């Protein structure tokens, strides 16, 4: 620095000289420097733009892939739903068709019985009483004219006729009673027919309802096959909802597993020792964790074997006989593990009591050793939890499957978002570099304001001189 200021005997003059020299150098290098700065800005902008384009392409590719994954998942889900609906229809139809012959026979029999009863119950009109009235008139005449001979015969005829009439009336009443009885018998038959027809109606309605549902699902399925944006949008939002719901359920399941762990970790020390370590962790804790993991695995296999979940296609594709065998095997292992857990939970309580008693004895508080008579409630509750939790954890398979499937989509969406933000940032940086180069070139001009002002003034005077010359020499 001193050297720079010592080129003349006066430092101020030296400094001024240097300033003039630098300004002059900068002024003469100005066009090249401006060009260089602007070129650099443009180059950096292009670099970032290329990077941004590349990221945008990657984003587009990922979006396509995500869309494909989403559509494939949606297609599979719809296929499962439609398949299950068809299974249900098949079940209904099979059940009804299997009973149709019985139903038909029952209806025919009921109708035949009704027809027979109806035919039997036809009302027979009583004998016309006209000639009886004539006999009565003759009998009355005969007794009025004191004609005993004919009158007696006619009276006898009258009596016998009256007797016959009474018998006919009695027979008629009996027949009527019988007809009424037959009609009464027909009522349950009518009801049975009505009930049967109602059942048939319900089944038909159910089939119609299911067919409408299938129609709706098929429509959605076709939308998915065609890859329509609406279908993708619905699937995407559903996927997000499934992701958060399944994550919530999994968190609950993790809570359950933690409780389960605390139930069995302590008594596990009785089996594998309380102080042995594997890789820095207590063997008892690892053993308890392994038991819980095995239970969850068995639960997964059980759910797969039952075809409730489809995480392992190999299990789903097994022959039915093998699959059913697998169901029993996994269930048995799960049951045994649950029993072991219940035993360990009991052991935990025993150990706890023992420890409390020992502590009380060591404290010299022997009275505290007496057991609480209601302690069996907590023991039973712990045993119950130890037995139930493994089975409850079995159902983790369902949210886990949903979580795994929706996770792909969610990761895809997050990655797309990140790539989009990256692309935007790169573009912003590129443009920023471009404008920065402009700003730098302006800053470059800042110390050159005197020569620039001078040059501008000179250019102005030249242009005014040229104008005046043009005016003088047209």
């Amino acid at each position, binding site marked *: 620095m001193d050297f720079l200021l010592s080129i003349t005997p006066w430092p101020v003059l030296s400094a001024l000289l240097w300033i003039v020299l630098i300004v002059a150098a900068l002024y003469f290098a100005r066009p090249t420097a401006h060009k260089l700065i602007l070129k650099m800005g443009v180059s950096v902008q292009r670099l970032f733009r290329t990077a941004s384009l590349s990221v945008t392409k990657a984003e587009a590719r990922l979006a396509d892939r995500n869309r494909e994954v989403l559509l494939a998942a949606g297609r599979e889900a719809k296929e499962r739903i439609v398949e299950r609906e068809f299974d249900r229809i098949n079940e209904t139809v099979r059940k009804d068709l299997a009973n149709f012959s019985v139903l038909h026979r029952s209806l025919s029999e009921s109708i035949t019985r009704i027809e027979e009863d109806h035919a039997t119950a036809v009302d027979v009109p009583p004998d016309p009483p006209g000639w009886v009235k004539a006999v009565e008139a003759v009998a009355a005449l005969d007794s009025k004219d004191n004609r005993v001979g004919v009158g007696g015969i006619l009276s006898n005829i009258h009596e016998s006729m009256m007797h016959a009439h009474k018998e006919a009336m009695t027979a008629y009443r009996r027949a009527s009673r019988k007809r009424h009885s037959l009609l009464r018998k027909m009522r349950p038959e009518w009801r049975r027919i009505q009930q049967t027809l109602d059942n048939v109606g319900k089944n038909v309605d159910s089939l119609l309802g299911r067919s409408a549902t299938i129609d709706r699902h098929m429509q959605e399925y076709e939308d998915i096959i065609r890859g329509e944006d609406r279908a993708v949008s619905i699937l995407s939002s559903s996927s997000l909802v499934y992701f958060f719901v399944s994550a919530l359920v999994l968190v609950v399941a993790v809570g359950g597993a933690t409780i389960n762990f605390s139930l069995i970790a302590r008594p596990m020390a*009785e089996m594998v020792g*309380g*102080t*042995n370590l*594997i890789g820095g962790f207590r063997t008892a804790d690892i053993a308890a964790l392994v038991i819980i993991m095995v239970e969850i695995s068995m639960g997964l296999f059980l759910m797969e074997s039952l075809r409730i979940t489809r995480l392992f296609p190999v299990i789903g594709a097994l022959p039915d006989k093998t699959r059913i065998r697998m169901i029993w095997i996994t269930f048995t292992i799960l049951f045994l593990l649950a029993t072991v857990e219940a035993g360990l939970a009991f052991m935990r309580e025993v*150990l706890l009591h*023992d420890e409390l*008693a020992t502590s009380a004895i*060591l404290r010299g508080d022997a009275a505290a050793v007496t057991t609480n008579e209601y302690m069996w409630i907590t023991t039973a509750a712990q045993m119950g939890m130890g037995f139930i939790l493994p089975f409850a954890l079995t159902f983790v398979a369902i949210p886990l499957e949903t979580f795994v499937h929706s996770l792909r989509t969610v990761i895809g969406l997050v990655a797309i978002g990140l790539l989009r933000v990256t692309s935007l940032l790169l573009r912003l940086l590129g443009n920023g570099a471009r404008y920065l180069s402009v700003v730098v070139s302006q800053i470059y001009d800042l110390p050159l304001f005197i020569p620039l002002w001078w040059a501008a003034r000179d250019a102005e005077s030249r242009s005014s001189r040229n104008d005046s010359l043009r005016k003088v020499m047209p």
Partner: protein
Amino acid sequence: MRRLSIAVACALLAACTSSSTPGNSGVYMLIDTSGTYREEINKAEQIIRYTLSRLDATDSFAVARIDTGSFSEKDIVAKITFDDRPSMVNQQKRQFAEQISMFVKEAKSSPYTDITGGLLQAVEFLNEKQPGKKKVLIFSDLKEDLEEGYIRDIDFDLDGFDIIALNVTKLRSDNVDPREYLARLDEWQTKVESSGGNWRVINDLDGLDGLL
């Protein structure tokens, strides 16, 4: 590839090998039964019970009396190394507590006090057990009184040992000249620290939280 797989298998085996816990503790408690200090033995029982409640599986604990010649296994009143199983540990603790109760009832006063011999025995015992932490509790007034002929001018190796003096009561002579008491404490502290051990004194038996 083969070497790599062998190395991985070895690493897995090493990880799976159940390691003996280095975090276990070994506690050796010396109880002075000489002269009037015999009357303090009930306090020693409390400390033992407290210590028992704080010890866990695979820890070792021994209680020995300080009498005329304490460098002897015969002076060990009770000793135990706790089992790995929690249920057994509880059972062992109870049995140990019973043994100590019996000792407290039957302990007799001894004419001499061989603290150094007891400490040597403690060091030997704990070195044999090789616990992670080694603690020697000395329940005494720290006034050593050796019978004629007993040689206790021996160098210790107390590296890794915590020596804790408990209930160091003041003698009548200490009351007359407290320098005696302070000199006694200093002497023991120097002896322990020069041998590589850590020295502590706890006289307030209500504040035993930092004992183990």
